């Protein structure tokens, strides 16, 4: 169990974060973008857990933080999807490129 060094885990989380960010920047579909954000949040969760487990096993701050992040991510997703649905009503599309009326 302890054979896995922290660096591996951090590498995973970092990769996850970058993937998420890449997805956010490139995917047109809002739902997918939302998922990408979730990826990023989860990579942060991994960070927290890893730090807590490896560096500061004494306290549970990291774990708690993770739980809260998950909760809030859910709330965020709920609101976001509600908004996207409403946007679909008016725009007949959830392509982010179609929602660029306001600019400059």
């Amino acid at each position, binding site marked *: 169990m302890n054979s896995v060094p922290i660096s591996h885990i951090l590498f995973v989380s970092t990769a996850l*974060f970058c993937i*998420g960010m890449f997805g*956010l920047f490139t995917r047109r579909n*809002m739902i997918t*973008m*939302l998922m990408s*954000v979730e990826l*990023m*949040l989860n*990579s*942060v969760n991994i*960070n*927290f857990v890893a*730090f*807590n487990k490896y*560096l*500061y096993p004494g*306290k549970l*701050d*990291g774990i*708690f*933080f993770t739980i*809260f*992040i998950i909760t*809030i991510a859910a*709330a*965020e997703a709920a*609101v*976001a999807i*509600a*908004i*996207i649905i*409403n*946007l679909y*009503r*008016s*725009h007949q599309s959830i392509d*982010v490129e179609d*929602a*660029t*009326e*306001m*600019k*400059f």
Partner: protein
Amino acid sequence: MVTDLLLLLKQELLVAVILFLLLFLKLGRDRSNESTLNLVNVLLFLNVAAGFLGAKDGELFSGMFHTNALITAEKNILNLAAWLISLQAYAWLRTHRHVIEFYLLLLGSLMGMFFMISSGNLLMFYLGLEMSTIPLAAVANFDLEKRQSSEAAMKMIISSAFSSALLLLGISFVYGISGSISFAEIGAGISTEPLHILAFLLLVSGFAFKISAVPFHLWTADVYEGAPVGVTAFLSVVSKGAVLFVFVSTLYTVFKPIAPLWYNVLFVLSLATIISGNLFALRQQNIKRFLAFSSIAQVGFILVGMSGSSQAGMASVIFFILVYVFSNLAAFGVVSVVSAVAGKESIDDYKGFYQTNPFLSWILTIALFSLAGVPPTAGFFGKFFLLMAGTAKGNYWLIAIAAVNMVVSFYYYLRIVKAIFMDQNETPVAAITVPVTVKFSLYLCTIGIILVGLISWIYDTIFSLSSGL
């Protein structure tokens, strides 16, 4: 013990009580919008009034939540702003289907801000931040059938989600570095090693996003333009103010060890913000969008003051936010009435405005002068003190650039005054009958604009509350 709890959590609890009342109202038999709005306004006024009674310093939940005179004062300012906004929203909401939901979301977000301001550790801070952001995104979409409204909401929720992701990454780094998430302890561990700097910058970017400092401001204009005016006002004054409070206190206390670093960061951010804010404001045609950019420029000035990193620095920031509440809300008040009644939101629609609506014209003019920082309005004092605090560091070129930008900002504020008073227009906005509550709030704002600066004890009290490095 319980009394302590009640006292310390006073303002949060008050807001919570109002929230529950509104829920019951919602569940109960439906009533006319007017009566609901009046009731809410009364409640909010009581909320403001109660904020001044029985303040107490102390902390709860093993330091996650702490409060003191300064924090109470900040919350009072936010309460006041919320009340004024709700008064002004009257003209818009009285015909709206979901009045109560609007307030539920708004007050929910307000409560989130309160917790954020009182937060004693990063977890609480994060919770407060999200709790204040997510409802706003929802409420930005409150003109359900408007395309722009939902676009605004979408942009806001996605951007904020992204920013909070980066913020969290930063928090996780901080946690990794210092092994703690409580402000009291992380300060000790932080230094200027690359990782620390990165973590710090990620945190700052979270703040900067909320106060819409360049280059993290891009969502602002679109959201302000798309959202209903009341919401825009709330975004530009309350949420911005709340985050600024936290930002300044965090920098001054938690990140004291790396003060030289964040001084430079603020230097860069403030210049970028002032300049690009001005440059964009110059060319706006929609008055809400214009106010968005002008508010960005204002934030730049606030950052200049913040960089003073002295007691005067913090005081000037908080004082300016107070001033800004009055000035900006006066402006938004007029704009909201005009857009609600006449449906006009373009600057060109304000041509010849004075011929038909002298009262609103004067209010808007005074507000704009205050934003521009012309004496005798409070804005003058606010800007003067900010720049003065910024100068304390002896960085005169920063001040020089800021001062030059004040001239630029003059141009676009005067542009609107010019439209109102000087430009000819065959079909100006028809004479508007201003609802009494809105009028009342506008009067309040104007009085505030004129008196807050001239009466020095306001600044002096803020000064005595605040603290330098």
